[in-house]
């Protein structure tokens, strides 16, 4: 697999200039995630209104893959219901771990991260913000760890 398949234009763009890279003061859900393997940290902020994500943002330090993944995630989940977010999580997780993606879920721009599946050691970079987001939604208080 060529390096360019992993580091696609969209990933480089979101890795360099992440969207929704900020704190959300009125967040209803907030959680930290940590990858002890590489020292990456992420904080995910969510604002829920009537079971729908009305704002999503993140802060932290990470590699291009994890930063782009977090950035694309915040874009993707905004406006979705928690049920839809759960489905998206499952589909995204399937995609980056090389499993079949359910046909009824549209991954859209997130498909740019499909190349990660060829790099087992980088899967955790891509999934850290997602696991953190899922933990936040479920009301977890303890930071999420990839290990």
């Amino acid at each position, binding site marked *: 697999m060529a390096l360019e398949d992993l580091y696609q234009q969209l990933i480089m763009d979101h890795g360099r200039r992440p969207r929704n890279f900020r704190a959300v003061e009125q967040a209803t859900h907030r959680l930290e995630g940590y990858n002890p*393997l*590489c020292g*990456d940290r992420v904080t995910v902020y969510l604002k829920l209104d009537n079971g729908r994500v009305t704002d999503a943002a993140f802060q932290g330090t990470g*590699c*291009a893959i994890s930063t782009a993944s977090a950035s694309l995630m915040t874009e993707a989940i905004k406006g979705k219901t928690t049920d839809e977010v759960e489905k998206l999580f499952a589909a995204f997780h399937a995609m980056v771990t090389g499993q079949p993606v359910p046909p009824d879920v549209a991954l859209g721009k997130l498909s740019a991260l499909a190349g990660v599946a060829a*790099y087992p050691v*980088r899967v955790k970079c891509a999934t850290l913000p997602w696991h953190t987001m899922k933990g936040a939604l479920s009301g977890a208080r303890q930071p999420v760890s990839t290990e």
Partner: protein
Amino acid sequence: MSAVTAPGTVTAGCSPASRFDVARVRADFPALGQLVRGRPLVYLDNAATTQKPRAVVEALVGFYTRDCANVHRGVHELSQRATEAYESARRTVARFLNATPDEIVFTRGTTEAINLVAQSFGRSILAEQDEILVTELEHHSNIVPWQMLAEQTGARLVVAPINDRGEIVLEELERRLNERTRLIALAHVSNALGTVNPVEEICRMARQRGIAVLVDGAQAVPHLRVDVRALGCDFYAFSGHKIYGPTGIGVLYGKAELLERMPPYQGGGDMIRSVSFAGTLYNDPPFRFEAGTPHIAGAIGLAAAIEYLDRLGLGEIGRHEQELLEAATIALAEIPGVRLVGTARHKAAVVSFVLDGVHPHDVATVLDHEGVAVRAGHHCAQPLMERLGLPATTRASFALYNTLEEVEVLARAVRRAREIFG
């Protein structure tokens, strides 16, 4: 830049001045000949573990195909052979460190050796308010066992700082020694930065005050000639796999008079003289500290690795590696955006660096695509990374079989990472 030869087809010698024949050395390591992602493997993750020479692999195969039996027990021929080979390995290690065989305890690795000292020696001498001194650049394995011991005994962990070059500040360390200091635990060579610490001087300071010193030698033994008597330390620990030997075997050197006084670490077979339900008599060191069937093959493999190093000569190896260190330092420092992390005046062949605006994991992935294996992360030294204000670095660590051509491949790969993420 000069013309680059493919790293798999290295020509004889590293430089005309060196008698060290790196091409011949490489031929001793079967793993080095392979392609990774279609490119010749450039293995620069030697501080994590080293590749193994054929002599080590053959020693393991030899034990398992001919001499496999348990040690110290059987009357039969195979057990005698196994025992002789195992004890001969102990003598080889003793010679290697300038110690006596009864001062050599086989462990699973450096980590277990440090835990052994913490739980046996540390626990028997520490009282509440006593102090254990470590440095800011320690590996987690030389921090956590002491934290656990401090928790158990009420002792305190005191930390000696480093300067921005990544060197221990001796005056600061000395200022932290007092009548409550019982033990100093420090690395001989930093795994993350390559700094060679002034262990001899620190041992001298400790001796004047009656403080025991444990040296974590995991990163030192592959690069430097270690003489525990000349260093003046009380304990010295290292791992077989970082010195071209097998994983799962390591060494604790302890001064005979200290080991003599220390209680066992684990209970079991082989560490006893006699057992009855009324009470048990413990064996003498080093057997007192080797409960259960040891890693016999591992010890034999480690001895083969040490004999291999002795044939090449650690002096020659050191000179060759210093050449690589110098070349890598220059080649990387030339690249715009690269900042070297750890610029101690006395270093082993480890180069840690950050590339401006590019995360070390991304650097390592690009390097991997060029066949270059490095480590990216905190190198199990999170307090050090915090001191340096970095979440992670990329680390290239060299071994006796690396070449100047490989240094060039590394530098080109880092430039490529810069292009991709620039």
